[in-house]
């Protein structure tokens, strides 16, 4: 049971103010660390999809899923199956370059399916959309270069195949 590992949770929540606050408060109250959190509206305008990456063992994850499901604005909570999902993170990075190393940076970027968005006189901007581990690998490969600026979105995900997760609107009050 005690297998502490990185987990990806997807929550369908009300698209209203204060929801993000309530969820992050719950995580901090229970002592859970949020590695990344992303949130955006879904195809149903009143519902947002939140993707949270956290670390913990089975017991902790079960507890956090039960606790978050109890929140009134949370419609459903899903633990993402890594094998059966597409999990993506987006990186924007500005790297310092000069004539001697420009070629090498381009090669590394191409090898990671990165997109070169801009090349200036002293720097280059790259975008990579990939799994978090590929992005980590890319940054590792760039460790001998000087990174001027870096921005990552955090993880977002979607399940493979035709199935769609149940947004299960449990708290839809009919008043």
């Amino acid at each position, binding site marked *: 049971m005690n297998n502490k590992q990185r987990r990806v949770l997807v929550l369908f929540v009300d698209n209203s103010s*204060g929801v993000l606050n309530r969820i992050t408060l719950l995580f901090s109250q229970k002592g859970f660390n949020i590695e990344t959190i992303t949130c955006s509206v879904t195809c149903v305008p009143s519902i947002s999809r939140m993707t949270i990456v956290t670390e913990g063992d089975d017991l902790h994850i079960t507890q956090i899923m039960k606790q978050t499901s109890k929140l*009134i604005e949370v419609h459903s909570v899903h633990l993402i199956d890594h094998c059966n999902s597409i999990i993506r993170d987006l990186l924007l990075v500005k790297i310092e370059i000069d004539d001697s190393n420009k070629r090498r940076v381009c090669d590394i970027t191409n090898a990671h399916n990165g997109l070169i968005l801009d090349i200036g006189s002293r720097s280059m901007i790259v975008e990579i959309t990939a799994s978090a581990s590929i992005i980590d690998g890319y940054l590792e490969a760039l460790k001998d270069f000087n990174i001027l600026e870096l921005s990552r979105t955090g993880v977002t995900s979607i399940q493979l195949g035709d199935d769609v997760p149940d947004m299960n609107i449990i708290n839809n009050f009919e008043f």
Partner: protein
Amino acid sequence: MQLNGSDILIEVLIEEGVDTVFGYPGGAALNIYDAIYKYRDKIKHIMPVDEAGACHAADGYARASGKTGVVIATSGPGATNLVTPLATAYMDSVPLIAITANVPTSLIGKDSFQEVYIAGITMTITKHNFVVRDINDLANTIRKAFYIANTGRKGPVLIDIPKNITIAETEFVSKQKITPKPVQISSEDENTIKEVAKLINESKKPIIYFGGGAKDSSDKLREFMINSNIPSVHTLMGAGVLGYNEKLNIGLLGMHGSATANKVMNEADLILAIGTRFSDRVALNTSKFGGGAKKVHIDIDRSEINKNVNVDYSIIGDLNDVLDRFNKLVKRVKDDEWVKYLSDLISKEKEEDIKRNTNKDGIYPSRVMNIIGEKTKDAAIYVTDVGQHQMWAVQYIRHTKPRSFITSGGLGTMGFGYGASLGVQVAKPDRRVIHITGDGSFYMNLNEVSTAVEYNLPIISIILNNSTLGMVRQWQTIFYESRYSSTDINKKMDYVKVAEGFGAKGFRCETISEFESAFEEALKCKCPVWIECVIDKDLRVLPMIPAGGTVDDIIVD
């Protein structure tokens, strides 16, 4: 019909069946209070000394009546005064609606006079909260709040209403109250019930362990206990759910529970945890709790399952439904040996306890509790504060009915007692309310005696005065080599005079016979009464299992 926000608020409260609210006015709440004036024939408003008193009163009202308590406070300091009482209600799953007024929306977020973000402050101590920003959302928000407060595991819900919303007008259509449905048992859990019933029928040493969650299922629980012949133990919050004189009710479990109750948990082969949450005051050592027994957890709140103690089976649902099913499936445990063994153990323990507490001069808390029980024919509602007196009360008051032992269990809030007593007495005007408190706790809320006097609430406060913060001092004695840092109370107050100053009546007793006659007098009074009982500051609540310990670490002397 076209109504303003304040009238809509009161109309929906009436829809929800509310006839009494507790509260305290202020600038941002002026429109609401104007409506309270207008509707004074339909809704009674009670104004304690401060918002904390009002909120504890609404909580006590809810605990005693089973209805939803309602408290109203103004913005800023009015709202923040609700924090401790809301946390108290949240921890004990009490359905409560807190209405806070706020500065107008145009001033929100600008550090305006008396502005606080009370929704943010109370997020983790309420079941849910709302900020109403549009008059058209007001009525449904209040209806939702009542629904949420009363669905599944109950709890407090806060609604923050900016001042301009309380005066803005809109069309109001009244609606029928929506009664929350009981939590349905899933088909998977239906199967678990069958499996567990089989397990119960096969077990030799089963035990029921119940808590406050069972308070509205006391009849079904009693039926289950008696028909199955399974003994039971209870938590602090479970006091009163089953009568003290039930043969199979062994009594209190946990830190200050009986040695027998704690021992039984280690010897049982099957533990049925019902409406309880394995708190650290009961499952003091989570890894050793329950020894080798199979554990079954029956509760309404899924997130309690495997939170503190891992169980073998869990069933989620309304306890009345679940117990109904068990009552059909479970046979009587034929073997009386287990029951006899436990009754012998507990009677022996009780005898020893009586011996310890008699043949001594002075006032002994156990005797005080016994006398209270005898004189009220065990039919009063007992409200406590927090400390040693609370534990003596739960150990020795003879609870006979649910909702008759009212105490802050989860948060352990000193200063809960008087405010809660006000609400209890308002909810149950025909029953005697006995408030059992310590000098430390009493100082935290004795100002509310003036409210009891004002509203003619004949609450009797029994103050076990040991001139110290007894429970903390007890820990200092045991764990800090008697270094009594800031626990002794050296106030020179004359309780009798101060009581009279408030318009109440006061007694001071130094012997048990003085107490007996004072209590008899008090029962005849129609006004609030204080009875100060001078007790020895070195008395300890026993037995005691230190935090994190097991029954092997129990302190009995």
